[in-house]
């Protein structure tokens, strides 16, 4: 099992969610986050004095998939989030030791 974490432009969230739903992914966790990569921040000027906005708002999606679904899920999220401009974000995947469905107590891939 893999945990896919994607951080991308907030306005792409609807497309990403649809792409994942299209793959049969039932659940995902969405968080509003802020940070910067290559895009850096931006500066605003108020009455002639500069204000640095160092972190940009991004959205973070965490989704758990079976090992076999990793590639298609990565592709789906990436193509839904991509705009082609700097600031599109990053996606990374990590190995999961265990997953447990709280309601039923199911374990492993059955719990995804």
């Amino acid at each position, binding site marked *: 099992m893999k945990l896919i974490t994607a951080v991308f432009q907030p306005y792409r969230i609807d497309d990403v969610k649809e792409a994942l739903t299209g793959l049969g992914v039932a659940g995902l966790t969405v968080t509003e986050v802020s940070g910067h990569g290559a895009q850096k921040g931006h500066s*605003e*000027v*108020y*009455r*002639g*004095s500069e*204000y*640095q906005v160092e972190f940009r708002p991004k959205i973070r999606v965490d989704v758990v998939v079976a090992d076999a679904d990793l590639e298609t899920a990565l592709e789906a999220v990436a193509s839904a989030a991509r705009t082609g401009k700097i600031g599109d974000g990053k996606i990374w995947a990590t190995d999961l030791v265990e997953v447990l469905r709280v309601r039923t107590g199911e374990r492993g891939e059955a719990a995804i």
Partner: protein
Amino acid sequence: MTPADVAWMLAAFAVVLIMFPGIALFYGGMVGPKNTLNMLMMCMSTLAVVSVLYVLYGHGAVVGDSLGGLGLLGNPLEHFGWIGIYDDPGDGSIVEPYWFAFYVLFAAITVAIVASAAVGRMKFSAWIVFSGLWLTIVYLPIGHWVFAYDGDGTTGGWLRNVVKLHDYAGGTAVHMSAGLGALALAMVLGKRRNTQMRPHNLPIVLVGVGMLWMGWIGFNGGTAGGANFLAQYAVMSTLLAGCTGMIGFCLVERIRDGHATTLGMCSGIIAGLVGITPSADAVDALGALFVGFASGAVVAWAVTWKSKLGIDESLDAFAVHGVGGIVGSVCVVLIGFGGSPAGIEGVLLGGSWDIAWRELVAIVAVCGYAFVATYVIAKVLDKVMGLRVDEEAEYEGMDVSQHAESAYDMERS
């Protein structure tokens, strides 16, 4: 006086009162989200402090017979408690209770401008004490100099009657004194620990500006004293100067910083209105457009001075009101319109230089006195009760530390 005069003055009174929540929102939107309520409280509290002191001794100190005939301060006991002003002349004229109360609004709005310097670090208790002292020691004398005319056997203020300045509605007593007062207070208070704060809500800044602009119509229109030619003239110039203030400020920003901003537009409107306050009766339409443009442009340039000087005069009352007021007064000298109610011919239009020294003396006297006196009041008060909150309170924000409230619920509920 006709019933129409009384009706307009009553309406102007109500309109000017709107300036208080107006200036509170104007400043409140410009500060950080944790200092908003404190700013609203400081602005509105000026009405509370000033009205009490005005009924006790303030009105006499401004318009009363000059102490010793010197023209420096009116007799503070002359209208003590506003006693004996309630005889109805029965002719429908505008009576003393109205005028006395109208003066309260002028004084309180001046103190509210000074509040802008205290953002994010001044104890509310210290502000209340400071505002009463500032009214008494700075505004009342300057108000007397400028607003008190010589009467039958009484002496008025020296700037009005000896120097004979031209100041239509308080460019000196209101705007220059507040602007320089704010600068001095900010210097004594020192910098905030975190000055990297951007305006938290520009839309409410604009709401405040709208209320202020409307109030200014009552302020300048009401200074005419009735429903007359002068009131209509002043309303015209007040509109036009606000409009070109916007242009002047935004143009400087566009050239210097690359963008015309909402805050710049709002600041430019106020700068234009400040500029037209001393000159609303002295310039024609083209002149009013110029006054607004010049005020907006010069103020846009002047807002950058404070950071170079290292002074945390956060909301730029010095630039907007001090410098803006000076620009307006200088415009009377330069481009005064001979056919206006004030009838002063500007030197660029072939008029005499006579008005120049009068305006210069008034500017130097008011700015100099306001700055020095405010500096002394603030220094003394800092020694006596301490002006600043401690570091933790400043970090926590003034809303919570001074008022145990938050403007916004930041946590999801």
